[in-house]
């Protein structure tokens, strides 16, 4: 219409843009009715070939409009003008002219092409926004990253979606150092595309139905996923157009003109297309990744409008990805905290049990000393008396009773003084590594949050010991507490567990060269006046009960290393 208006100097310009002119009719009068046979454009002085073309091309509709106007019925006709380049839509409004000898009709021709296009475009845009809305609803129903990526790709590629043939997602790593190919969807060949589209035309599905199909494990595009997961792009200027666009956070349509270096060429070859739409996924000002989309099968050019709608969709997609990632991190943190909490509870329980056993052990040692000495004296003198007096002395019977009863108490004491035997043992096969870790957990519970370093040789990682777990905890705790005391803190000791023949050797070290750690530890084993040394005495008793020991040996060429030996369970 702009073209028409430019040429129609005498024409009236109206809003909406239109052109005014007068048509003079060539008519015949039959049966008291005027019949228009033809018309002639009258009042336009300038040559308006386009208007003329439009009117004559649509002459039937024009004659009809003019006839109806002259016969008293106002009319507006829709004219469709098809040229070689395109199809245009016009509206012809006619109204009678009074002061003429022959029937003339005033006309107003309005170009409706733009409105028609806009109408279609709006309809399509509403459709696209509807789809985005469905996708956003689907995002809200899941926190699973894979599901979110699948929804994004389906929205990008579904026929009633954003309409691309293929979609790819690359996500950035946490440090934003590179992009990793994660997921893709779309046909890998025209044949496959034909089959898919044929199926869809027979069984059309809504976007929700397509989502459900994929959620139930259908429609996985193995080949194209293999392609995308093989791609890793460092986020550096030299890494190619994808990295550049991602770093600059701009949406682009990548074409042959974008190729700057071999990396660009290699990427284009991988995707097998000339044009790709690229939209960065940005949420909370952080690059989450990029969406790539192409029309490899249909070859339909990617327009700015396509890129715009993809960009709008990408904003929602970015938030969904970020939420999922944050949720994943949160879930991981919660799981760690839960695990730590359970560990603390277990450690406390073990600690309480170990402390109880320790108290019992200490009591046993005290009883052993306090009772054994008087018993030795009483029994010893009774035995002495038995040897001194004559066999027929009446006192002999009394001394004999004393001697036997002392022997009985001594036997009981021998059993009682063994810390292990006085407890109701709950012996079973336990993972050595697990018991050591639990003990370290107890050691580092409470105010002390540091745990000693633990190294387990591969051949002891799965080894088991046959012990009472509580007693073994108690023994290790006592030894490690003393080790930590000598090393000025738990964090300074390290445990190195190796296998030697049928035993595990737990080497405990303070990490200092030429220290007297092992020596000092040993000197503690013979001191009994302090509580902690009694703990160590009990610990040694427990270890020995299970065939273990404490010693000083060599590890990896280092001499004078303190070790705790414990036999391993070998199935008997």
């Amino acid at each position: 219409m702009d073209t028409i208006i430019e040429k129609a100097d005498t024409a009236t310009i109206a809003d909406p843009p239109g052109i005014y002119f007068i048509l003079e009719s060539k008519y015949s009068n039959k049966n008291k009715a005027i019949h228009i046979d033809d018309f002639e454009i009258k009042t336009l002085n300038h040559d308006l070939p386009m208007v003329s073309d439009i009117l004559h091309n649509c002459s039937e509709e024009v004659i009809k409009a003019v006839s109806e106007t002259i016969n008293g019925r106002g009319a507006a006709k829709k004219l469709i003008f098809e040229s070689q380049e395109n199809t245009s839509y016009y509206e012809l409004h006619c109204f009678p002219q009074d002061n003429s000898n022959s029937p003339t009709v005033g006309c107003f021709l309005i170009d409706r092409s733009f409105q028609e296009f806009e109408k279609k475009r709006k309809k399509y845009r509403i459709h696209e926004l509807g789809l985005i809305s469905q996708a956003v609803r689907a995002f809200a129903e899941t926190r699973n990253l894979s599901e979110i990526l699948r929804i994004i790709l389906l929205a990008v590629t579904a026929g009633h979606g954003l309409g691309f043939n293929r979609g790819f997602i690359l996500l950035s790593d946490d440090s934003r150092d590179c992009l990793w190919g994660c997921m893709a969807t779309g046909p890998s060949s025209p044949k496959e595309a034909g089959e898919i589209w044929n199926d869809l035309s027979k069984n059309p599905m809504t976007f929700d139905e397509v989502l459900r199909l994929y959620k139930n494990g259908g429609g996985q595009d193995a080949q194209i996923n293999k392609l995308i997961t093989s791609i890793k792009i460092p986020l550096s200027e030299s890494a190619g157009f994808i990295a550049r666009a991602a770093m600059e956070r701009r949406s682009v349509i990548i074409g042959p003109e974008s190729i700057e270096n071999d990396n660009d060429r290699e990427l284009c070859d991988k995707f097998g297309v000339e044009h790709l739409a690229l939209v960065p996924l940005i949420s909370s000002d952080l690059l989450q990744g990029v969406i790539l989309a192409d029309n490899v099968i249909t070859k339909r050019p990617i327009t700015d409008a396509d890129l715009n709608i993809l960009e709008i969709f990408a904003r929602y997609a970015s938030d969904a990805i970020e939420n999922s990632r944050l949720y994943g991190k949160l879930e991981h943190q919660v799981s760690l905290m839960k695990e730590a909490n359970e560990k603390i509870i277990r450690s406390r329980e073990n600690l309480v049990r170990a402390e109880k056993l320790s108290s019992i052990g200490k009591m046993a040692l005290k009883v052993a000393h306090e009772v054994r000495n008087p018993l030795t004296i009483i029994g010893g003198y009774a035995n002495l008396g038995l040897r001194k007096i004559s066999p027929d002395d009446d006192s002999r019977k009394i001394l004999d009773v004393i001697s036997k009863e002392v022997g009985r108490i001594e036997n009981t004491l021998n059993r009682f003084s063994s810390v292990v035997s006085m407890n109701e043992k709950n012996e079973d096969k336990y993972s050595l590594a697990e018991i050591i870790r639990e003990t370290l957990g107890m050691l580092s519970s409470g105010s002390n949050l540091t745990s000693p370093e633990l190294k387990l040789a591969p051949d002891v990682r799965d080894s088991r010991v046959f012990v009472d777990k509580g007693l073994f905890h108690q023994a290790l705790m006592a030894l490690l507490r003393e080790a930590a005391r000598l090393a000025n803190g738990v964090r300074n000791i390290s445990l190195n567990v190796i296998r030697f023949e049928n035993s595990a050797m737990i080497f405990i070290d303070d990490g200092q060269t030429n220290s007297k750690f092992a020596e000092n530890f040993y000197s503690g084993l013979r001191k009994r006046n302090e509580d902690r040394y009694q703990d160590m005495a009990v610990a040694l008793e427990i270890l020995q009960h299970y065939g273990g020991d404490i010693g000083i040996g060599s590890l990896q060429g280092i001499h004078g290393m303190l070790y705790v030996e414990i036999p391993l369970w070998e199935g008997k």
Partner: protein
Amino acid sequence: MKNILIIDDEEGIRGLYEIEFQSEGFQTHSVSSGEEALRYFNENRPADLVILDIKMENMDGLDVLEELRSRTIGVPVILNSAYSTYKNNFTSWLADAYLVKSADLTELKEKVKELVPV
């Protein structure tokens, strides 16, 4: 006659052991602490064998043993304790035997005779 030095803070034990070992043909001396024992050796008094208790006030039996060995006093020593725990203590390895106290002195007597034949 061989001399046995009995070191124990329990008077009853000392008395019992003295009677028993004297009756076995030994000469006995007894002291009630580690310090007294060291003084005994400082005075170069005779001892062919020592029966040594471990748990005593101030200086315990293992300290006495360590001191004796550091002075290269090679007298045979039998550690005689109410505890069995210290059998594997490195210092206790410096002793010639380790016996847990018992009213039945048979094992102790046999060990003494083994180390110091009459």
